């Protein structure tokens, strides 16, 4: 079946599912709300500081072109767990209601089921990236004191990295759901996986230390480096780290194959 058809079928499933829409809207509000919150915070700093300081916090270029792209997308990558919860719930429902079984009985192949969910994950990641793009663009246009047009899209590739990071994490959540089947358990595992991965990486023996950067979530987070030390005059990588884009895409491929082989071999 073609992808658009599979996507449409999956969207009918979600169309009247209130939790799905509520969580998506909350996620959207967070994306729009964070830059707005930062601005308000800076204004507040400005107000309380104006009597005794020459320093104007509004001049810190956190939300100015071109810094804004890396700063916001880096912060947004911390929000992906919320969107992953939406994915976990909607897919674990298919197992707990046994509707995945009925979908197969009705004529889906296991690959059709996989692709229909991936299509939804892709659309959600894409829509989220689009919202990030628009939010950053507008925030930057409003608050950057002076800029040349060439600066506006300097760093827009961070939105692309944000897309890969989010899509990769959602595929990871899909993979965990197919393994665990229960939503609460899966969300718990998702929450503890990253700290466990970090602990594991930091305890690697010296000869294997280089491997640490290639663990799935570590590789994904390596695409966008922590930007804020630059305001303390430290050197940072202010570009998307391309080798890790490659590694992340590879992990996405491996995870999708993992989901496929799990679905293919199991009784539903």
């Amino acid at each position, binding site marked *: 079946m073609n992808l658009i058809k599979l996507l449409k079928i999956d969207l*009918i499933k979600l*169309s*009247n599912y209130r939790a799905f829409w509520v969580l998506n809207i909350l996620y959207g509000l967070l994306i729009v709300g964070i830059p707005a919150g930062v601005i308000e915070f800076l204004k507040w700093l400005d107000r309380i500081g104006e009597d005794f300081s020459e320093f104007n916090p509004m001049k810190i270029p956190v939300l100015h072109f071109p810094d804004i792209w890396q700063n916001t997308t880096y912060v947004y990558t911390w929000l992906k767990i919320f969107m992953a919860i939406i994915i976990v719930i909607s897919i674990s*429902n298919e197992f707990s209601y046994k509707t995945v079984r009925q979908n197969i*009985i009705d*004529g889906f*192949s296991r690959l059709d089921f996989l692709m229909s969910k991936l299509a939804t994950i892709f659309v959600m990641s894409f829509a989220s990236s689009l919202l990030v793009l628009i939010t950053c663009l507008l925030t930057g246009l409003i608050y950057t004191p002076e800029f040349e047009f060439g600066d506006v899209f300097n760093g827009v590739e961070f939105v692309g990295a944000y897309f890969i990071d989010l899509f990769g994490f959602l595929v990871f959540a899909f993979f965990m759901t197919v393994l665990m089947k229960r939503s609460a358990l899966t969300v718990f595992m998702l929450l503890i996986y990253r700290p466990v991965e970090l602990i594991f990486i930091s305890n690697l023996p010296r000869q294997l230390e280089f491997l640490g950067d290639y663990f799935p979530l570590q590789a994904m987070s390596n695409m966008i480096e922590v930007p804020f030390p630059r305001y303390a005059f430290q050197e940072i990588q202010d570009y998307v780290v391309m080798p890790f884009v490659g590694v992340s895409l590879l992990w996405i491929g491996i995870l999708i194959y993992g989901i496929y082989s799990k679905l293919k071999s199991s009784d539903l």
Partner: protein
Amino acid sequence: MESVLTINNLTKKYGRLTAVNNLSLDVKRGDVFGILGPNGSGKTTTLGILLDVIKRTSGDFQWFDKPPTKEMRKRIGAILETPIFYPYLSATKNLEIVAKIKGAPLSNIDPVLKKVELYERKDDKFRTFSLGMKQRLSIASALVCDPEVMILDEPTNGLDPQGIAEIRELIKGIAADGKTIILASHLLDEVQKVCTHFAVLKKGNLLYTGLVDDIDKGIVNVEVASEETTLKEVLESCPFVEKVKEEDGKYVAQLSDDKQAMDINKYLFEHGIGVSHLLTQKKSLEKQFLELLAESETV
């Protein structure tokens, strides 16, 4: 006649447990085929394998004389165990998903909802439905693609007598349209009332397969009672009496050679016995079923 379903030596093992053992069956177009067996006899497992949700251990099967694919499942309307739908979606939306998966036109939805008398409730969420309505929606969903074959698994499970009667009428109506139906049930009476063919499963083994109509043929049991004390001896001496059993002061004679109650009456009369009670026992599927199960127990 054309085979709709052929099963060859199908086996499913869960570890050491054999859920389906070397099962072979053949279902022809237009059959209403009952798969009869107590709970846990492998009915649902078998149907699950036929519908590709359960992986077989060995053996194979063909739908429409071809190896199974997802395209064939689109020509089959099937519900396994309980009705399965998205609880937060309306009846119409649920059927829309089924129709889209099967590639059936959405215009089929309203007529099937009318057929199962759920049209007035079509915009209500599935979770608000009673069990009977859920079962009827299952049947609607199986019908939505105008299937060549329908598979129903315990379609009257948990229903009240009225609900059971409604579903059975529905199934008979569908069968009258010439559709092939495969019905799994632990209710003998249901299979006898609805089906043309049946198979008996127990612990994954096929015990018997045949025509429902043949159940009444073959062995005839006649209950006889008389004042005469020599009745038993005379019965035993009769050439077409296979066995004599005593039951509540009456004798049950099992006849052979297509002999009927009339013949035994004649024979007894010729040997000077007048009978006070003569009754042909109708052999119900239930009795045959219980006998089959008992036989398999002793093997």
